[in-house]
Each structure stands twice: as C-alpha cells, then as structure tokens.
C-alpha cells in the first residue's frame, strides 16, 4: 500500500494543549501545584466578586466557568450537579441554529467526550462534556425552539445538567474574566 500516512492525534498531547491555553492567566503548575492552586482559587472566587452590569438578560454568576471551546459550566450551590451550555461567542460563530441533538437522561460521559451536536446553517458541531458525569436533565425546550440557544445562550438556551463526578476537573476550566481575556487574545491573532 503506497498510500502515505498522516500524523495521528495524541490524546495526552490534546489535553496538554487545552490546559496550556487555560493557564494563560494562572501560574504553571504540576500535580502538586494543582492542590495548592485549588486552595487559592476557591476563596478567591467566593470573596471580592463585585456584581457587574451586563446587557444580556441572564443573571451574572460569578461561579460560571468557561472552556476554551466556548462552552460554559455552572455548578449548583452544592457542587453536585452542573448546567452546561455554549457561550455567546459560540452561538454567534455558529449562526442560526436549526437543530440540537442532546443525550438521554442517565447517559454517562467522560471529560472530552462529545455529548451532542448542534446543527446550524454552517455546520454540525460537536458539543463536549467538560467533566465526567451522568446526565440528570436535558433542556427539552430546545427540541421545539433551538433558536433559544442563539437568543439566550447563558439562560434559557442551557443544554444539559449533569452530575460532577470529579470536582477537581472544574479546575480545568476558566473564570468568566479569564474567558473574556482569552477571547480578546484570540481576536488579536
């Protein structure tokens, strides 16, 4: 077979790349450092967050975390389950959304698995579970009105709720502020 081969994806490389991008506003650390960072982050998140005015209709939530793939995750108060959706930047890039494919309640996913697909006039895009967990609720309104994701991506356009099987994985995500910085940085490229 004279067909030339191409480079294959390396799973570890992928996760390293993701982490490097997330850490632009955080210090580099090893696994030991992770434990320390967690101690530093949690108090920081809970104190000193001044409410800000936004033009969108959703409530500002200082606990909302973002991924560099433009998805958001909002843990509940007990940090037992989390709501997941896509960011305003993502819905704008996708264009008019015509269909959203979501999983069944009870389905289990690992971090980085695709849990669904959003179809817009431009393409079918995979949606990724940001953490390990099991689906507890699915936004059924989206099967009737997928446009909700365009009009209210952080509120009524929420997609799934899932259990947080491994709370440490929340550290792989960034705060809203870090996400805004990330957006400005990628725009400048």
């Amino acid at each position, binding site marked *: 077979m004279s*067909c030339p081969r*191409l*480079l294959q*994806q390396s799973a570890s490389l992928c996760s390293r790349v993701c982490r490097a991008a997330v850490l632009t506003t955080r210090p580099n650390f090893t696994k030991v450092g992770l434990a320390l960072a967690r101690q530093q982050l949690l108090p920081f998140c809970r104190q000193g967050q001044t409410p800000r005015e936004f033009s969108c209709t959703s409530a500002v939530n200082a606990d909302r975390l973002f991924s560099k793939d433009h998805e958001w995750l909002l843990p509940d108060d007990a940090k037992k389950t989390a709501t997941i959706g896509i960011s305003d930047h993502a819905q704008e890039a996708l264009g008019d959304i015509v269909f959203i494919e979501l999983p069944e309640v009870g389905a289990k996913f690992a971090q980085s698995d695709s849990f669904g697909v959003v*179809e*817009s006039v431009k*393409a*079918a*895009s995979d949606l990724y579970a940001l953490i390990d967990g099991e689906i507890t609720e699915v936004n059924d309104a989206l099967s009737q009105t997928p446009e909700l994701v365009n009009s209210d991506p952080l509120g009524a356009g929420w997609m799934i709720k899932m259990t947080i099987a491994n709370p440490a994985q929340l550290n792989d995500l960034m705060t809203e502020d870090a996400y805004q910085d990330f957006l400005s940085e990628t725009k400048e490229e």
Partner: protein
Amino acid sequence: HCKGVVYESVSSDVFTNLAFEDWVYNNLDLSTTNLLLLWRNDPCVVIGRHQNPWAECQLRQLWGSKVKLARRRSGGGTVYHDLGNLNCTFFTDRKRYNRKENLELITNALRSTWPGLDVTVSCRDDILLDNFFKVSGSSAKLGRQIAYHHCTLLHSVNTPELKSLLHSKKEGLTNRATKSVESAVKNLSDVEPSIRHSSLVDVIAEQFYSQYQPLYKNKVYPMDPSSEVDWPGVLSSREELGSWNWVYGKTPQFSVQRSHTDVSVLVHVHHARILGVVIQALDGWIDTGLIQELTGHLAGTKFWPKDVAEITEAFLGAVIVDADTRQKLHLVCKLLQETLS
C-alpha cells in the same frame, strides 16, 4: 506553511466512505497538514444528520430499487449520488476551516481548464452553473481540533433518477427535522462534454497542490477505506453507519397522517418507533374499544412496513367481528400502511 495530501478512495460504497471520513475526524492530527479526500458512490441517497428520510425521499421507490440510503454525520440537506458525482472532503485543523476557500479552489480549478464554464460560489455555499443551476452542495462537521467540509460535484449524474427519488410527497407530514432546500440541478458535462470523473480528479488535485505544498509528492494517492489494518476501527464504524438504528432510528420526532373521506389515521413517530396512533372518525363509526386495542399493540413498534404488518395481521386474524366492522378495520390498517412510506 501548511502542507497537503490528496487521497482518492478506491471504494464506491457510501457507508465505507463515510466510515473513513469518521476515522479521519476521530484519529488524525491535521495541525500542519490539509487532507483532501476524493470519492464517489454507487447510486445512493444521502440525508443530513438530523433529517427525516420519510420527508426527504420516495422511500417506496427507493426500497424497490438498488439505490442505498445513508445518513451522514454532518448536517445539511438531502443529495443523490451516483458515479457521475464527485465528492470532495476537505479535512483541516479546526482553525483552518474555511468553506469559501475550498469552494473557490474548485471553481478556480474548473475555470483554469474550461475557461468558458460559468461557475460561481453562491451565498449558500452552493456552486452554481450559469448562475442558476446547482452543481454542488456543501455541508460540514466541526470538532475541537479538526473539521471537515465536504461537497458534491455533479458532472454526469442520472438527473431523472435524482428528480424522481428526491421529489417527496410531503402531504400530511409535520416534523422538526432539518429541511432540504430544493434546487434545479444540471451536470457540468451538459455544458462541457470533456468533463468526467478522471479529468476532475486531476484538475482539482493540481489546484490543491498549487495552494498547499505537497506533503510527499503532488500525486493523487489511491487508498482503500475498508482496510482495518490501515484504519483500525473503520469497519465497526461502517457497520454503525449502515445500521437501521442510525439510518432510520436517528430520525427526529414527526407525525404523518393519511385520510379517506371521514376517517384519518395520524401516527406520531420518534426515532422511527411509533409513539402513538390517533384514529379520527365520525362518532359511532366503529367501537372505540377495538381501536384502542389495535393502537395499544402498535405503541413502541418500529415504524416499518414489515413490523406494522405483523401487528395488524395478527390483530385482524384474532379479532372476532362482523363483516362491516372487519371492512372498517381493514380501511384503518390500509391507511396505516400508507403512512409508512
């Protein structure tokens, strides 16, 4: 900066070719390389990921023919393929996803060899001939590190077959699935008779290699997409893509109705299984208990002629009624069968 490779599939089986697209999407690292895959299929109808085959094509006609039905992983509408259609899949790193660039590569390639050809890229990312006839449609799949944009290119397709299969009787059908946008189509060879599969492959590959530095040589590399040795996992992917559960079972919820004078049968279908059947008729036309019994048997059944026929035949065989009622039950079952395609 970015290198390129062109593969041509030696297979004309739509499921195998789609499985290979999946394999590339799930396995390759295209951070520094673009891959162009050229392929064509034996006659088949390909629906978009979230479409409804009952709404998009003449299933009865398809089932009675050798034409296959496939559901692709990407979005978009329904198309008909045969060997007179060339498929181009542009695999790139997610950051390099650019449909217009790919389509312009194709139109530039066409015009460079056939300067009289009036081909342009429309705002819907179709390629139009003479600013009117659609000769290419596109769709795409996006992941976090990788993306692909694939498109058709009609050069010598059996257009009467295309028109008869894709012309759908959508009467009585309501659904939330992605809808196709119908277009007038034409073959490139109708305008330029020297356009054929081999010349298109050469011309497009040449244009591709002029834009992206060849990773190896500026050759079109034939490859066998069914080789489990080269692409581990491709055969189980092929099996999934060819399965009833994927092709039909993925259909979003819909309802379809058939009537005859005052009697109508409405079927609610989800993932190609019957959710419920509602029979409407004038008061007193038939004993509602009988109807409830029949619809009770149907709930959960596959929305498929063979499966529904088994249920209705068993019901009609077991039920003890007078001749008049039996005739009415036959009518209801006939209308039910009509909803199935």
